[in-house]
């Protein structure tokens, strides 16, 4: 924490939550950010420490300091860093994962986009869930938009395009069957309205939700296929870019920029940033979340 905590060496004592953190984790946190754009805040440092501890066990490192050497000085450091990033982002997925992003979509972006598009005489919205894994994100988006069918999106057409590299994930996504863990943020109201109860504690997404979502296998580095992904108003790509190295990441982001309509938005994971990989996107804030905006032509910069 750098805003409130007095500089090191000052007479002030740090609060107790800062005392338990081995400074090497702050170094690892900075390295992770530099490479992936994912920032582990103070409240998430214990997750970073847990992830490091699991990796230490696997590779036989005896201390956090020794693990730091594995991440920076050993020949296999790039692979190890990727393994650590996997640890940090694994198991995060569930329906309604980021309420701040959904609020931004519903309360700020939809009113803005529908007003703009109405002026352009079109009533169609397209959203892409890139790296959709087992389908939690695209179904959440479909449900969020369906909630607006009587309001802002009355007489509108919308579609969610969901893609993932992994065939198996896409198959699971198509089935749309989820258990308690994936539904932990899903309210009773949504469960009743948009899901069918199955045996045990599982629920399946209703067909009237599924019809708004199309699932496909797509490799984000397949330039020929990426060229066909056009005209999106919003792209969500949460904790996916970590799987690419610098150059490929830049390529994927450039595709995203081209694939968005002017005035469209790219959302990453809640604590993930684009670093300096693309100067065309503009970072904007909504309450509790950031996004990358492709400004309309008249706003300049593009």
């Amino acid at each position: 924490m750098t805003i409130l905590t007095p500089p090191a060496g000052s007479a002030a004592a740090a609060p107790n939550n800062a005392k338990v953190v081995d400074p090497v984790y702050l170094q690892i946190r900075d390295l992770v950010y530099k490479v992936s754009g994912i920032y582990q805040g103070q409240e998430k440092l214990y997750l970073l420490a847990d992830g490091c501890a699991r990796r230490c066990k696997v590779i036989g490192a005896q201390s956090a300091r020794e693990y730091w050497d594995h991440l920076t000085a050993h020949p296999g450091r790039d692979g190890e860093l990727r393994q650590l990033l996997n640890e940090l982002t694994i198991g995060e997925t569930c329906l309604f994962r980021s309420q701040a992003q959904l609020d931004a979509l519903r309360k700020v972006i939809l009113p803005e986009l529908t007003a703009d598009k109405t002026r352009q005489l079109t009533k169609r919205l397209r959203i892409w869930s890139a790296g959709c894994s087992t389908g939690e994100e695209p179904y959440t988006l479909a449900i969020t938009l369906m909630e607006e069918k009587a309001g802002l999106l009355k007489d509108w057409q919308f579609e969610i395009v969901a893609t993932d590299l992994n065939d198996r994930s896409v198959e699971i996504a198509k089935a749309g069957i989820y258990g308690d863990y994936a539904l932990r943020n899903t309210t009773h109201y949504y469960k009743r309205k948009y899901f069918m109860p199955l045996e045990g504690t599982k629920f399946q997404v209703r067909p009237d939700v599924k019809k708004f979502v199309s699932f496909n296998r797509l490799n984000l580095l397949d330039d020929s296929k990426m060229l066909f992904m056009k005209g999106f108003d919003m792209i969500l790509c949460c904790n996916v870019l970590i799987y690419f190295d610098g150059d490929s990441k830049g390529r994927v982001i450039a595709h995203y920029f081209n694939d968005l309509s002017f005035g469209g938005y790219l959302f990453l994971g809640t604590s993930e940033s684009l670093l300096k990989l693309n100067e065309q996107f503009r970072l904007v804030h909504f309450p509790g979340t950031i996004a990358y905006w492709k400004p309309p032509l008249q706003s300049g910069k593009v």
Partner: protein
Amino acid sequence: MSTAISPNVRERVSRIEATPAIPAVLLPLLKILRMPADQVEMEAVARLVSYDHAIAAQCLRMAGSPIFGLSRPPKSIHAAVMVLGLHRIESILLTSCMGLAFPVKSWSIDPGVFWRHSLGCAMVCRRFSEGVAGADVERAYAAGLLHDLGILVNCLVFPGEFAVAVKRARQYQMPLDEAERTTMGFTHCESGQALAEQWGLGDSIVEVVTHHHDLGECVKSRGLVALVHLSDLLCRMRGLDYGYYERHKVDLLGDPAWKVLVAEYKQLENIDLARFTFELDEAVGEIRDLVSTILGPAAQA
């Protein structure tokens, strides 16, 4: 925004006591706290703190709070001062003084929410200006802390009208100043300006209080006003808001104030704004704890 204040607003604000009840230790303490950290004698700070009963009690209470994780609360003022550190003592000092100057009885917004926003904005202003050559970090901090002076004035002098404005802002999830303009015909910028001028708070603070929502006619301290304007917007997007969801997008880099800021604070041109934002999130929890402790358990909204 116009700087012409309606005579009615100015007249009603003039009924606020001519000088606030500022503790005698404020000025000498601030002078010490604003010295370079390595030159500050903690002995002297502790001695001055101990002269003022209210501030000393506040420091002891704060240092004994669970966020510092001490097994026993500190027994002496000196120990409390060591635990808290200079920045926190300054926040306690300024917040206590503002509280004394404004014995608000009718809060239309939660006082905890107000102080979190004010202290948050002060800290963001300080953070933006740290490391910028030639920037007056402490002036930036004070400007951030005082920018919403007019909200205190509105609570004190126009409680009924202001309550209606706050209700409207919450209902439509709109910026507070827009709701004030619609329902009251003026905003906390004008009422704050009237008091800031009356108290002679200095040109730069008067301009910050007056223009922090719109740089418009601001002439003298444009860089400082831009800094406060942007810090205020950022705080409202990251949990240091007025206690309700504001339905709007904040485009700091596209805001005309950003150009003004960068012209004066050149190093900010290459700032990693995403990381700056994530780091601010880390401070939010501590700001909440700080304000809860300063105000006491009754105001832990």
